[in-house]
């Protein structure tokens, strides 16, 4: 079984702070990480490979990332976590891609691999759109489901997945090839082994650009993107209000009075 996992390199979150003087994002250094949701996707890809192996079927896990050249670091990390192979989709022509173009480029790469199963995180913590995973499946015209919290069963032809939605859990059966976006609840990602770290150092990262993917110029990057960002601003920081201290009865009285003001009691 060919299993793919799409990952995104995102900024290390803790550094996202606002400089109160310039009202801009403070980014100390260039620390990055694999988008947290994608780690769950990768882990599920690994677990699926292991499950298939128990059933006597060999599988490979290929991890793909679209991004600038330094996204290679994220791919090496993915190899240290157990991925067999990594492909970086990087090209000047891809810069400025919105979710339409990003899912298109990833789909073009997946088309070359012809995976049976694709895992993506439910969303990235920087863009927060959750649109790329489902978009890839539509570009590839394959079965899909989003917000998967458990892969109940899987064989060479179909999978049963439990998805977490607002009101509860919905279970669906999908014919393969299929794409799932996953939520945190699905598993607990493993940490890198020493062997994995060695493999990551030595691994050759395949790089595909617009030429390899045969993406027309007007369907990628800023030129191909239907949406355009015209303004970015930093919202005013939320400031803390009064902090009450005192004995419990006193605090309770104040808290109650406040809820009364808010008309909820």
């Amino acid at each position: 079984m060919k299993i793919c996992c799409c990952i995104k390199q995102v900024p290390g979150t803790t550094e996202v702070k606002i400089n109160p003087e310039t009202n801009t994002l403070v980014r100390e250094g260039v620390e990055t990480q694999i988008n947290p949701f994608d780690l769950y996707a990768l882990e599920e890809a690994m677990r699926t490979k292991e499950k298939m192996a128990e059933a006597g079927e060999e599988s490979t896990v290929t991890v793909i990332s679209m991004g600038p050249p330094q996204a290679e670091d994220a791919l090496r990390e993915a190899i240290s976590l157990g991925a067999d192979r990594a492909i970086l989709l990087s090209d000047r022509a891809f810069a400025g891609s919105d979710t339409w173009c990003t899912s298109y480029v990833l789909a073009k790469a997946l088309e070359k691999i012809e995976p049976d199963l694709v895992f993506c995180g439910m969303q990235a913590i920087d863009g927060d759109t959750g649109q790329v995973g489902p978009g890839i499946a539509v570009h590839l015209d394959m079965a899909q489901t989003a917000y998967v919290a458990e892969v109940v069963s899987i064989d060479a032809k179909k999978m049963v997945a439990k998805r977490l939605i607002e009101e509860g859990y919905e279970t669906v059966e999908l014919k393969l090839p299929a794409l799932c976006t996953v939520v945190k609840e699905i598993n607990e990602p493993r940490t890198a082994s020493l062997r994995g770290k060695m493999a990551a150092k030595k691994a050759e990262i395949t790089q595909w650009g617009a030429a390899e993917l045969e993406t027309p110029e007007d369907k990628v990057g800023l030129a191909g993107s239907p949406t355009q960002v015209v303004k970015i601003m930093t919202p005013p920081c939320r400031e803390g209000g009064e902090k009450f201290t005192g004995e419990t009865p006193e605090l309770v009285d104040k808290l109650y009075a406040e809820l009364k003001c808010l008309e909820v009691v």
Partner: protein
Amino acid sequence: MSIKVDPTKCNGCTLCVKACPVDAIEVKDKLAVIDLDKCTLCSACVSACRFKAISIEVDKQPAEDLQNYKDVWVFGEQRDGKVAPVVFELINVGRQLADDRSSELSVIILGDNLDEAVADLASYPVDKVYVYEAPELEIYDSERYCRVLTDVMRDYKPEIVLAGATTTGRSFMSGVAIRLYTGLTADCTGLEIGEDGLLHQTRPAYGGNIMATILCPYTRPQMATVRHKVFPTSAKRCEGEAEIIRLTPKPALFGSRSKFVDFVETVGEQGNLVDADIIISGGRGLGGPEGSAPIRELADELGAAVGASRAAVDAGWIPYAHQVGQTGKTVCPKIYIACGISGAVQHQVGLKSSDVIIAINRDPNAPVFDIATHGFVGDIFEVLPALTKKIKALRGAPADSCVIQ
């Protein structure tokens, strides 16, 4: 297409360097230099520059006559024939947008046996309700819904399409936009018609640390998913009536490679977390699974939903479906009560658009107090039960004067 720095306007102030999320800008000899290998053309620097020295040029023309597209459409998401609450918020903002564009507001609903839902929608100020009924559409199926809605959009050519940023809206609307080759802006918190006549869509990114305004200038429809509880629910209509249009189902569109197996509801009477007006959340301070009892008791008393920080979820005290924050849900209730939550940045991003934040924590230095509207330094195991008891005792008592403003 390119990004350029105008050397006559740039004075090397480094605002752009600070704004760049990928560290692609350096100032050399008082001039910003952009590393094109790193730059993702995100435009953060363009907005940050106070001297209009940086510009991104796009050479693009619409592929078809955009005048053919008119009206605002709202996707009338439903489950078991019950319309999702966010739809009535979309009707409110959609009405405004339609009026600003001097066009009509329509709702489209997909499903089966929708009479009650249609009557409900028609009682709101919409001009038309499009009803697409078929047994195959009774339960949401992303492939089928995507194909059907795409087909209807191609026929009717709305100018603007809005859907709730729910698990349903966020997952299948992406596919509709892909098939129509148009833009979809996720999770909008601001929508207005600009002087250019375009839909200006504002959304938070980087965990709410920045707000981006996004346009879809060259393709139609302009599509957006909209966050819950940002816009107030629409009032019902006072006059006139909505035209109800029944669309003819096209069974050829109903193929799907996925099959519904079952649904297990896990939310109680308080409804789901994202729709809740009041959320009471617990964190590491709960100390154990039994620690959530005082939170649940207060939640029952206030009709609130229960939330949790990552610490409480990872420890297994509260299920993941309740997690608020970066790797959980983003919520915007009227009141968020954080109990025993230190308030790490990752948690803050999930709740900071709440109207009022109340924090109760033993540690006076907990970061949660930096964003709390009202902070209470105290032990949740003493404060919460006492508060619940007081609310029970005084329920229905006349309003006191407001002690705290």
